[in-house]
């Protein structure tokens, strides 16, 4: 597979502040990559670098094999969709869509055809004569996508395009973007801080923190096998449960006080005996049961439960910390009930407490 975007040793400094550090990223042709991370992690900055809106300090950027490190944004074959839509307020929808084509001196009849095609794909045909002020948020964002669409670009860049929309519209447009990607097959790079958007849309997710990509992998891989403690804690809601303990018996078991869990079935590298490790267990991967099974279950006491419609979240005290477990909604549990949590080691994550990396 050819690379659509290739970022080599990208470094960006604002004065003395290093925003992106020696970054390498390859995006395959037609791939949907989501840049995910908390605010200030550099994800939008990276997108702006790809778009050519920020001058980078060091490194190289290739798009479709062409070195575009110093190319103008319009010469990179990219289209960009912004969080605030950034529609030109004094132009009609048609004017907004055709502005880029006019700048590129595309013949008038071709502009007409391209605008019509984009309007059809995005179902904004009846709005073409309107000004942005007369559009709803969802319609505006569709026009903003259309502006990238008409220019027949190789790569779509999305900068938190759904953050300004309400929850219902957001999930609708999310599906629409996914459908659009399936239909057009363009390479897309999508910045968001919303992990649901990331997990649903992405072929691969790049989880970022402090200007460094922490893990770049398929959503399931990120979810099931987080590369480090940060990724593990960032992905998943509610957050992964963490137990601070040690591995004993040459890596055969996990130990925390009286608690003794067998590590048989854990998918990972050489565990070995370590003094300080963190065992990560997702709320979805724990099963509540009444009987204790030595080496497999954790004794716990129910604190409270939160029914959430589809299922129910139970908060418990276990192994000296607070843990959460997802259970079927029919299963109501009274506070103070003693239960046992069954651990599926195949789905657990083990981190070295010092390096925070997955073992």
């Amino acid at each position, binding site marked *: 597979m050819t690379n659509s975007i290739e970022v080599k040793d990208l470094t960006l400094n604002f004065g003395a502040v290093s925003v992106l550090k020696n970054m390498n990223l390859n995006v395959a042709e037609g791939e949907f990559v989501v840049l995910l991370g908390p605010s200030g992690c550099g994800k939008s900055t990276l997108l702006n670098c790809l*778009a050519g*809106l920020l001058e980078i300090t060091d490194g190289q950027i290739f798009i479709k094999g062409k070195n575009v490190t110093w190319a103008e944004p*319009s010469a990179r074959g990219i289209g960009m969709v912004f969080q605030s839509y*950034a*529609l030109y307020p004094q132009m009609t929808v048609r004017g907004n869509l055709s502005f880029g084509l006019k*700048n590129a001196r595309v013949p008038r009849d071709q502009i007409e055809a391209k605008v019509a095609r984009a309007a059809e794909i995005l179902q904004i045909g009846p709005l073409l004569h309107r000004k942005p002020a007369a559009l709803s948020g969802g319609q505006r964002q569709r026009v*903003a996508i259309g502006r990238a669409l008409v220019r027949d670009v190789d790569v779509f860049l999305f900068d938190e395009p759904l953050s300004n929309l309400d929850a219902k519209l957001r999930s609708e447009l999310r599906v629409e973007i996914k459908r659009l990607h399936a239909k057009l097959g363009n390479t897309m790079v999508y910045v968001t801080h919303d992990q649901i958007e990331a997990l649903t849309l992405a072929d691969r997710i790049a989880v970022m923190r402090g200007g460094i990509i922490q893990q770049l992998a398929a959503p399931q891989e990120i979810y099931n096998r987080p590369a480090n403690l940060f990724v593990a804690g960032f992905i998943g809601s509610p957050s992964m449960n963490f137990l601070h303990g040690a591995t004993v018996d040459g890596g055969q078991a996990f130990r925390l006080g009286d608690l003794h869990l067998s590590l048989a079935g854990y998918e990972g590298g050489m565990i070995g005996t370590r003094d300080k490790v963190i065992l990560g267990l997702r709320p979805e991967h724990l099963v509540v049961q009444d009987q204790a099974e030595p080496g497999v279950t954790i004794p716990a006491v129910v604190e409270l439960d939160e029914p959430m419609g589809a299922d129910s979240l139970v908060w418990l005290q276990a192994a000296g910390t607070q843990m959460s477990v997802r259970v079927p909604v029919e299963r109501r549990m009274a506070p103070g009930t003693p239960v046992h949590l069954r651990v599926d080691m195949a789905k657990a994550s083990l981190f070295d407490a010092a390096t925070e990396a997955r073992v």
Partner: protein
Amino acid sequence: MADATLNTPARSITEARGTKPKRALSGRNIMIYGTLIVFSLYYLLPLWVMVMTSLKGMPEIRMGNIFAPPVEITFEPWVKAWSQACTGLNCDGLSRGFWNSVQILIPSVILSIVVASVNGYALTFWKFKGSDIFFTILIFGAFIPYQVMLYPIVILLREMGLYGSLWGLVLVHTIFGMPILTLLFRNYFSTIPEELFKAARVDGAGFWAIYAKILMPMSLPIFVVAIILQVTGIWNDFLFGVVYTRPDLYPMTVQLNNIVNSVQGVKEYNVNMAATLLTGLVPLFIYFVSGKLFVRGIAAGAVKG
């Protein structure tokens, strides 16, 4: 219980109707309107005297009752002020000064606003190394007294071969308008979301295309503010006009001064008043025409700085 809740609102409405009359002549209102009327009279009185005097003949003026309206209205002083009044040098009235002022005003206003708006645009969206220092120095220019620069500019204009010409004066007005106008435009442009600018760049618009096609159409109010500031400022300028031009190119303000201050024979108060009013008409007209836009533009620029 149910009774009480049903009845209370109805009763309170009737009570409110009875006890809260609208008193137009409350002590508060009398104070406010009284003060406003006194101050407006204070400011209108000189204008009244000027208009009345300009419509009187000299014999009536000599009777000394300056507040009285004219017994016999005459427009003779206005005609004389416009086309016949004498300075020490010529006797073709204010008209010569008026056309000189127009010739100075139009290029100065256009040039200064074009340059300053592009300055503000570049300083907001195309920041370059040292652009903030450049801006600070420019703003600092607004605080240097004109007198300090008068003579150096004479030398500069002389070296450029522009001294005494209208274009020299246009250049001076453009330069002196730069700090405040650049500040005005920069502050306005910085309220425009940067994403709009980025979108235009992705769409392939360059420096000038973004300025002309995206920003200018969004910035009408601030252009109106700039036009008003420049028109009134340049029209009312006396100092630069008298220093940097020749007598036959004097702007209207200088011509007015020469008419009013020329001492030969009788002082014609009515002609002087008419001449002064004529000179003030242009800024007055601009304010009346664009007052609403002016307020809107000032407010828009003031929100974010």
